[in-house]
């Protein structure tokens, strides 16, 4: 626990430090250079929505880091000696491929709007969404398969964590699908404003991020 939380705390502190370091050295009370000087404020050259997304990803990172920490602490015999490894449904491999495909389709959509080739990103967006929804269905099937095994106890923390972590990850995908649906409908209705391009770009970042989270989570499940 302490290792992981230390790492999270240090990384966030370093990020904050990096963002502020240049400006933190200012001496605003001095006569020369500072007073009367009115620099443009462009703290980040990105749109506000993009900045907010990155802060949101920081929050989600904290959430999953804490879940993973709790997972590993609970495995430790010092926190209970009742951990029984459970079988991992093979469909998880297929789901991983689906999520990867979804992420790649999103990237395709982003490339289309970025290059302004005139081609509509609609097909790419729809394919990405279909893959993401298939991923969620696949996860539910995995739950079903585990449930059908029958002799697994929910009080076994390995099983509890399996449902919990895949569930929380799935909810984040659902949240992404809500934003995806809004963007896709607007593209479908023929709206082509810069804000659509931004939506597609932000969806892509979020998709890649959830893929990374899934890969870490899947690795954790497989190795324990």
């Amino acid at each position: 626990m302490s290792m992981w939380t230390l790492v999270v705390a240090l990384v966030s502190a370093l990020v904050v430090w990096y963002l502020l370091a240049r400006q933190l050295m200012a001496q605003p009370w001095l006569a020369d250079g500072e007073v009367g000087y009115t620099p443009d404020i462009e703290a980040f050259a990105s749109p506000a929505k993009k900045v907010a997304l990155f802060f949101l990803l920081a929050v989600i990172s904290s959430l999953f880091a804490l879940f993973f920490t709790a997972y590993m602490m609970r495995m430790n015999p010092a926190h209970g000696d009742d951990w029984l490894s459970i079988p991992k449904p093979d469909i998880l491999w297929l789901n991983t491929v689906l999520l990867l495909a979804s992420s790649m389709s999103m990237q395709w959509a982003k490339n289309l709007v970025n290059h302004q080739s005139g081609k509509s990103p609609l097909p790419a967006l729809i394919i990405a969404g279909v893959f993401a929804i298939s991923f969620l269905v696949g996860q539910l099937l995995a739950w079903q398969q585990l449930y059908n095994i029958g002799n697994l106890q929910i009080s076994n923390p390995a099983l509890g964590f399996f449902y919990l972590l895949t569930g929380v990850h799935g909810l984040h995908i659902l949240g992404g699908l809500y934003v995806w649906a809004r963007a896709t409908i607007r593209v479908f209705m023929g709206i082509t404003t810069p804000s659509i391009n931004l939506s597609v770009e932000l969806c892509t970042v979020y998709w890649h991020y959830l893929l990374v989270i899934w890969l870490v989570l899947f690795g954790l499940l497989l190795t324990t």
Partner: protein
Amino acid sequence: MAFVAIADRDHEQEHHDPHTFVSKYIWSQDHKVIAIQYGGTAVLVGLVALVLSGMMRLQLAFPDYFSFIRPNEYYQFVTMHGMIMVIYLLTALFLGGFGNYLIPLMCGARDMVFPYMNMLSFWAYLVSVIILMSSFFVPGGPTGAGWTLYPPGTILPGTPGSDMGILLMLLSLAVFIVAFTMGGLNYVTTVFQARCQGMTLMRMPLSIWGILTATVLGLLAFPALLVSAIMMIFDKTLGTSFFMPAVLSMGQALDHQGGSPILFQHLFWFFGHPEVYIVALPAFGIVSDLLSVHARKNIFGYRMMVWAIVGIGALSFVVWAHHMYVSGMNPYFGFFFATTTLIIAIPTAIKVYNWVLTLWQGNIRLNVPMLFSIGFIFTFVHGGLTGLFLGNVTVDLPLSDTYFVIGHFHMVMGVSPIMVLFGAIYHWLPKITGKMFNETLGKIHFWCTFLGTYAIYLPMHYLGILGVPRRYYAYGLSDFIPASAQSMNVGITIAALFVGVSQLLFIINIIWTLTKGKPAGSNPWEATTLEWLTPDTPPKHGNWGHNLPVVYRWAYAYSVPGAALDYITQTDPQKGGDIEEGDHGKH
């Protein structure tokens, strides 16, 4: 390319000019209205918690005298008082209330960058409050597990509210965290993206620095509470064993196996300790501004104050286990966490010295906000010093779970932030309402609160050293507690009821201000920061009229040698009149 403030760019701006009463005051997207909604709700729910504490004190002073306070109710009062005060009052009022009101005004923005999400944040907060309050009316009542909600007791029969009460509490917390995250993303993004021209980070008032850092802490720490809440809901409803060890309950073995209550404690305090600073850092920032304005002096060591805020924020993530010295965790952890805990004393002490040095040789105006600010320095130093006792493992062990702890944390994170909150409300009330409050009433309110809280919490330290345990409904026959402790409890209760009732003075003053207050003018305190320079008082929707302000200097140009007035506003373009390099010592 001409400068266009980010808030004014078309594709960034969400148009939301209110037209109807409902869109103006109820489903409002204006940060000032949302701030008042947040603040009003928080104060209301805080009054509930105040009444709960009064009932606890009645039981402690006059055991078994009141038929409506039985052990179950007592524990429910304790739990709800703690949780409401920490989360639903202090966090919501500082960040949802003052964060919302001050960030756009002090940074020179027209509104938060995501007004719609800001509105959602308030309504989600309101839902969380309603869920929490509804637990008073369900069978079994609210949870009585103590605000720390430690398993396994929390969700086992025998603890009050272990069925519906605890579920509603956990659900309410989860909704609150969602609300806070929506608000928090807004605050951080607004500070970084929507400041007006010239407002560099190091020209921001310390209030904004405190609120910004506290928000970042909240965004990273609240997930720990969410994780523990979700896992506990699973343990309660689905029969998992994340936290629940093998338990015999009412003579029967439950299905739970070897879960880890200490895991919950780690998660809870990984949130719980930063939470202390989520409350304290905005208070640090705001009190710095209040002291500077009313002492007519620049804040002493501005840059060091900023670093201290950021440093305390970072350190607050590596001290959580000092709440767990008696939990049975690895004893070597205690050494590590005692060390990090004591290191926090360094930036904190820097801040205290700087506040005192700001007052030194200032032209102090001893008005109500200033009285509360100076009161804060007293109560904070007091609570901080007892923290040094509790931060050391060997001293903490005998004092753990005694009234010494109650005295300590009420001084440091109860009374101190409340002092700043009152000071801040009195300070900004003329801007929020456009009218001046009753000074005499405010001063009486201050002295009742300041002296009264000392009368409550100083004796508690003594009780704690005697070994009187906290959270006990009644002490029964305990040889080590002298009979005089009971007399002291009566005295504390009288003081507590006096302080509780004297808060009516504050409510009366607010009503007096709204009905009979004289117009305050736009800048009654002769302050330099942007919120006092709005074209209208109270500021209208959009804050700044046609043009956004342009900032030419830092926020603390008070009593500048050679200047015509004893303050120069941040938007004043005049050259000179600022502190020359190498001159610091003289001013």
